[in-house]
């Protein structure tokens, strides 16, 4: 689902071989992929570890707000769709963890960082899904914003990340459609259903715009990430694309984004929107969103309660291997 913190990256470490560095940059400029065993600057490696693992955590934590409605979906059709989507998010987390592991970090270390609050995940998953319409809004807006971000990542310079993104984008194309379909159905329903749909848009609109990260003026590492082709578009460019695509979709089903300043610029054809409340964004990032504590508590509980399963599976594998050795010796 999505990615935030495309701007964060580590500071340069010590001096690195300038010739290697030049060769590395030339390879990127030729649009060749960097593969796991190739030489890479330490800051490139650390930036990717952070970005890919946070992306993976977002997929996994992102299962929680949607999982909240699995048992209460309004029909069997909606339930089957939601189950498939949540299962996809789990799979996407796994592809991404595997891609990050190729950079030399273990899965266990990444999980520790998440559970100990040392790693971030997308701020959007710290908002609650309080009505069924929220599930529609999440698919439509949150997955829609994620797709805007993820499509350029399919061309990221790091091979394993790019390959994981291609797979994810292919699978994710139904996620946004199912959300839009669900919220459209409500928007065309009774007055109460329509109110519920509008209320969901009111609450998810601004947090979705925040998913693209701070404005370009505030993001200090954009230029380096662009030079390394980890990032292809700036946060503000992607945010604008999202707004331009989404406003007409909302109006088509009779809903209105909660922004009195929203207006179409005739010359460029783009939608101009009001100021984002960056205080809210920073509060959620620093742990004070509506559900931050609940999300981490849920992940910690799942990890702790699964410990015996992980141990038992290893013990069972050991036992079976032992039996095979005995059987082979007897032959």
């Amino acid at each position, binding site marked *: 689902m999505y990615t935030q913190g495309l701007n964060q990256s580590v500071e340069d470490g010590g001096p690195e071989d300038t010739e290697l560095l030049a060769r590395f940059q030339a390879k990127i400029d030729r649009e060749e992929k960097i593969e796991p*065993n190739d030489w890479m600057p330490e800051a490139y490696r650390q930036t990717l570890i952070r970005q890919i693992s946070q992306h993976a955590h977002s997929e996994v934590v992102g299962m929680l707000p949607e999982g909240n409605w699995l048992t209460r979906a309004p029909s069997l059709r909606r339930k089957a769709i939601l189950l498939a989507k949540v*299962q996809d998010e789990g*799979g996407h987390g796994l*592809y991404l963890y595997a891609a990050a592991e190729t950079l030399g970090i273990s899965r266990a270390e990444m999980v520790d960082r998440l559970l100990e609050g040392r790693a971030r995940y997308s701020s959007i998953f710290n908002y609650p899904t309080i009505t069924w319409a929220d599930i529609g809004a999440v698919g439509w807006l949150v997955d829609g914003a994620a797709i805007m971000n993820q499509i350029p990542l399919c061309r990221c310079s790091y091979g394993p990340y790019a390959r994981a993104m291609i797979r994810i984008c292919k699978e994710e194309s139904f996620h946004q459609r199912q959300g839009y379909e669900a919220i459209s159905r409500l928007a065309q329903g009774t007055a109460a259903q329509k109110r519920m749909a509008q209320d969901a848009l009111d609450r998810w609109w601004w947090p979705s715009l925040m998913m693209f990260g701070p404005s370009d003026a505030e993001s200090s590492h954009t230029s380096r990430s662009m030079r390394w082709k980890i990032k292809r578009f700036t946060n503000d460019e992607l945010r604008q694309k999202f707004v331009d695509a989404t406003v007409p979709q909302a109006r088509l089903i009779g809903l209105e984004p909660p922004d009195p300043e929203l207006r179409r610029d005739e010359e460029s054809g783009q939608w101009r929107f009001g100021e984002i409340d960056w205080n809210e964004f920073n509060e959620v990032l620093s742990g004070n969103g509506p559900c931050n504590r609940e999300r981490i508590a849920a992940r910690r509980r799942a990890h702790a309660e699964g410990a015996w399963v992980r141990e038992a599976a*290893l013990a069972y594998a050991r036992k*079976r291997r032992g039996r095979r050795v005995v059987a082979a010796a007897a032959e």
Partner: protein
Amino acid sequence: MSDSDTRAENERDWPLFEVFIRARTGLHHRHCGSLHAADPEMALARARDVYTRRGEGTSIWVVASDRIYASDPADKDMLFEPAMSKIYRHPSFYDLPDDVENM
């Protein structure tokens, strides 16, 4: 128990496996990713869930990652450069009379 098994179990993650999927008969199995599992049976079951949710496969291979012996990227020139200069290994190298249509 082999050395690699011991090594994997000393770490906190389950061992790593590489996954190869055959999309349909007549095609090669193709590498599609990796996953952690306690043993090969579990790796196969998880590969089905992780990599074939949309009918991508008719057959799966899983191979313990530490059993793969790979070429070193630093040896790339030494290993593959010699093939670059042998253009006579390609059919387009040869001059044939125009009257020979298919060969």
